[in-house]
């Protein structure tokens, strides 16, 4: 019984290690292809396809995060007479953590799944084999543009989301909690440093990178058939979210 359990655990660990190794190899191949043949039109098209379409959901997510965060903290801060810090607290929280992490999670769901669904469908319909037969490297043609697009788009969405989130906080602070607009803005000027924003942007670059690579990996290795596409998409979202949380902890440790 114990031996059987150990065998199962061992097999699970081996599978995960094998998967991790394949992802690392794909990452290495992608890095090698980065400067090989840039495809600016593809990158722009992916940025538009993956990024612009995510604007609405990112806006809504960060807007309501700013709103709820202010609702939860404003009363307590007012009680302690610290209403002059609320703008700064919200901006730092959103700029350093909530902005990049929430945009990362939203993009893992919206962008990562789209990448996996597209690539796995191409795999199932032999389009990736067709690329190889026509002497076109699928890593260069499919993965590099998506990775670069994600590394550009996710930080842009993060900055956009940061602004929307702080704006959401401002609306509640001013119109619900009765804090003056000047006090809110002044606290941002007083407490927030440029690195609070740029640190979050650096995180977002890494998150974009991870989302693209995992999205492409699960697309390229999806099981055949419609069910396989569905499974691969779910795996991308779950793995990307876990990777984002782990990476966020590591980056927070390093950056701040």
């Amino acid at each position: 019984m114990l031996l059987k359990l150990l065998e199962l655990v061992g097999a699970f660990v081996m599978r995960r290690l094998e998967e991790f190794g394949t992802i690392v190899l794909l990452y290495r191949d992608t890095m090698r292809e980065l400067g090989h043949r840039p495809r600016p039109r593809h990158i722009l098209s992916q940025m538009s396809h993956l990024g612009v379409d995510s604007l609405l959901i990112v806006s809504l997510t960060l807007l309501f995060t700013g709103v709820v965060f202010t609702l939860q903290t404003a009363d307590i801060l007012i009680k302690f007479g610290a209403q002059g810090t609320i703008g700064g607290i919200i901006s730092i929280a959103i700029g350093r953590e909530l902005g990049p992490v929430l945009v990362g999670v939203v993009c893992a769901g919206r962008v990562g799944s789209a990448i996996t669904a597209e690539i796995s469908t191409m795999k199932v319909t032999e389009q990736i084999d067709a690329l190889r037969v026509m002497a076109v490297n699928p890593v260069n043609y499919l993965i590099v543009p998506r990775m670069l697009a994600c590394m550009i788009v996710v930080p842009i969405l993060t900055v956009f989301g940061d602004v929307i989130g702080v704006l959401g906080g401002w609306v509640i602070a001013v119109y619900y909690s009765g804090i003056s607009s000047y006090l809110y803005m002044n606290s941002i000027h007083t407490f927030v440093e440029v690195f609070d924003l740029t640190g979050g942007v650096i995180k977002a670059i890494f998150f974009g990178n991870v989302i693209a690579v995992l999205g492409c990996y699960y697309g390229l290795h999806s099981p055949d058939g419609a069910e396989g596409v569905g499974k691969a998409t779910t795996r991308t979202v779950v793995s990307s979210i876990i990777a984002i949380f782990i990476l966020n902890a590591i980056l927070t440790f390093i950056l701040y």
Partner: protein
Amino acid sequence: MIRLVDVCKSFGDKEVLHHINLTIEDGETLAIIGGSGSGKSTLLRLLIGLIRPTSGEIWIGDTEISRLSEAELDKVRLHMGMVFQYSALFDSMTVGDNVAFGLREHTDMPEKEVQRIVEEKLNLVGLENVAHRMPNELSGGMKKRVSLARAIAFEPEIVFYDEPSSGLDPIMTEKIDELISHTQQALNVTSVVVTHDMASACRIADRIAMVYEGELIAVDTVENFKNIRDERVQAFFHTLRTVKEA
């Protein structure tokens, strides 16, 4: 010339192809026939380098391709074209862009020249005024033709066909067969056609090779092939006769 020397291919513990030895001459059309799961598609994927043999050698001209890196293999693939079973057209591109894909990727040809070649190849496969259409607007037979136009756009020396008649009605199957023969004559390419359709194989091929449970059991000209006494070969011809009688 294409040469397979003692090629074996296994997936895990399962050996799919056993010791295949085969030579395909320049300019010839060879049909590889066999039932479902016999290993004929695996053989085709080995020939084009999409998978590697477990052992043995695969020669395309003077190059042994089974141990080449992917980048080296790409140079060999520039001399090959392939028509996929389900066409494998890029569904995000128009028909014209599909046909022009290889030219745009591998040459600095002016766009005007690219468009001329696209039109020429589409005309060669009997299609006109479809360059602007998307693949999902085409019928199965038209997709196969576009796939052939794409395969020959780069003027390859070898064209591989994976089940070209699959999913087509008998009339369209005959038209595609005519097109394969016409393409072979017009461009003098070496053609390797994988099919389970014996009638099709007899119409287009100079020689037929039969794969049965991973083994190459017969290779001969169409006329001689009909006289082979092996019951596995005869079983295939029997299906042809049954269809004709019906």
